[in-house]
């Protein structure tokens, strides 16, 4: 049951992830990205990480992607945009190089069996609940959380300063 669910969700995530980059219209790419996010959220449930699931749904699928779509609509991205021309040799070379590196990494990972460890123990009771995640965030990971929030604050203030300058 769990394996079947994992396979289904992983397939949806992988296929829609692929579709994100091969779509010709920006809006379809964004929609498939939402589907990818949704499938990833499903995988979090399988990992008993309920809080992360809810946040993934709320923040990524519900808020960030709405902004993506909003920007696509506001900028009025042409429906039949051509992003790739066959005569663009430099792009093909760059893409090929990156693909080679990625393939190499994948082969290395398979050969050296990275990430394959002893079967993990079942999650302890209370794992992944809001209480346990909250407690971890405010004890063990307090410093990273605070640093991240300060970075976000700086980004917000920076965005406001840029927007203001443009308006005046």
């Amino acid at each position, binding site marked *: 049951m769990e394996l079947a669910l994992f396979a289904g969700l992983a397939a949806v995530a992988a296929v829609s992830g692929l579709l994100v980059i091969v779509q010709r219209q920006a809006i379809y790419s964004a929609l498939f990205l939402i589907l990818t996010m949704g499938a990833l959220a499903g995988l979090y449930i399988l990992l008993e990480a309920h809080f992360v699931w809810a946040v993934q*749904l709320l923040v990524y699928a519900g808020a960030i992607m709405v902004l993506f779509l909003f920007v696509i*609509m506001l900028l009025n991205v042409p429906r039949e945009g051509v992003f790739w021309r066959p005569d663009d040799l430099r792009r093909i070379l760059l893409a090929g190089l990156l693909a080679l590196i990625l393939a190499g990494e994948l082969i290395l990972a398979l050969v050296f069996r990275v990430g394959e460890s002893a079967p993990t123990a079942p999650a302890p009771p209370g794992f992944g609940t809001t209480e346990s995640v909250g407690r971890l965030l405010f004890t063990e990971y307090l410093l990273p959380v605070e640093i991240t929030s300060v970075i976000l604050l700086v980004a917000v203030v920076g965005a406001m300063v840029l927007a203001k300058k443009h308006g005046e």
Partner: protein
Amino acid sequence: MSLLIESLIVMLVKIGVVFATLLFVAAYLVWLERKVIARIQVRWGPTRVGPFGLLQPVADGIKLFFKEDLIPARVDRALFLLAPAVSIIPAFLAFAVMPFGGTTTLFGLLPRPVPLHLADIDVGVLYVFGITSLGVYGIFLAGWSSNNKYSLLGGMRASAQMISYELSMSLSVVGVLLLVGSLRLTEIVRAQEGIAWWLGVLPVPNWLVFSQPLAFGIFFTCALAETNRAPFDLPEAETELVAGFHSEYSSMKFAMFFMAEYINMATAAAMATTLFLGGPLGPLGPSPVWFVAKVLLLLFVFIWFRASLPRFRYDQLMAFGWKRLLPLAFANTIVTALAAAIAGAGG
């Protein structure tokens, strides 16, 4: 094994009841709205079909069902067909965690008490916000795929409005969560049991609306905006946008948007009831009757607002959301956190 089958049957029956109730509410909320607004405007409202026009929703349903289903020529077909479904599915799903009663044995008919909610999950509040935030895609896709500038403007207004007001809405709930200490909806209801003394003199139910009145006000205002209700109904402002995002829709696809809007209203009212008005709690213990009564009361206020208030201008809507509601919600969060910390330190 028989226990498994029994719980499965109970679950299916509960899902069926909730689903049917939501469909019924969607249909008769329209009737209620027309009647109430007519009364406020000194008219009769629907009177022809059935006594008090009670069969009007049935007639409307049959009419919509048999109407020609038009798909305009240059629409984005796939997304045009997808949009109504994307709109209505989250509307139904959000109700899955709502605790609408305590437990019941159905007057002794059932061998063991059945809890009256579909699911009781650890992240209940986040679930409702997460699912309802997906509903905006339906409106958005409808606006975009229709290939119509009025629809597009409606869709864009809806997404901007819903993102803006979702912030204040979530923040207003933080006050509740700080006092209760759980995201579980049944836990939030349980925390509101008993009697409290308001301002030290007035005996009131221990509902969170009395300890978090500002949060309730912010939540209710945002709920109006999130469900695109007057005075925040700019996405479908008929005087400027024809019908907004659903201008190009007809027949059952139009009906699905319509139903989604009314079910979302019911969900927002149910959420406000659960978070602030004690959910199904009443003088004689928790009961679905109290829950339905409170939800209906809030829905009446929704309709009352629509009959009384003129529509905002778009810049007023944005300024109100970002410059008034959001700072207020922040202030409420900070004050509540301080109070909770002081009370926690003292006790």
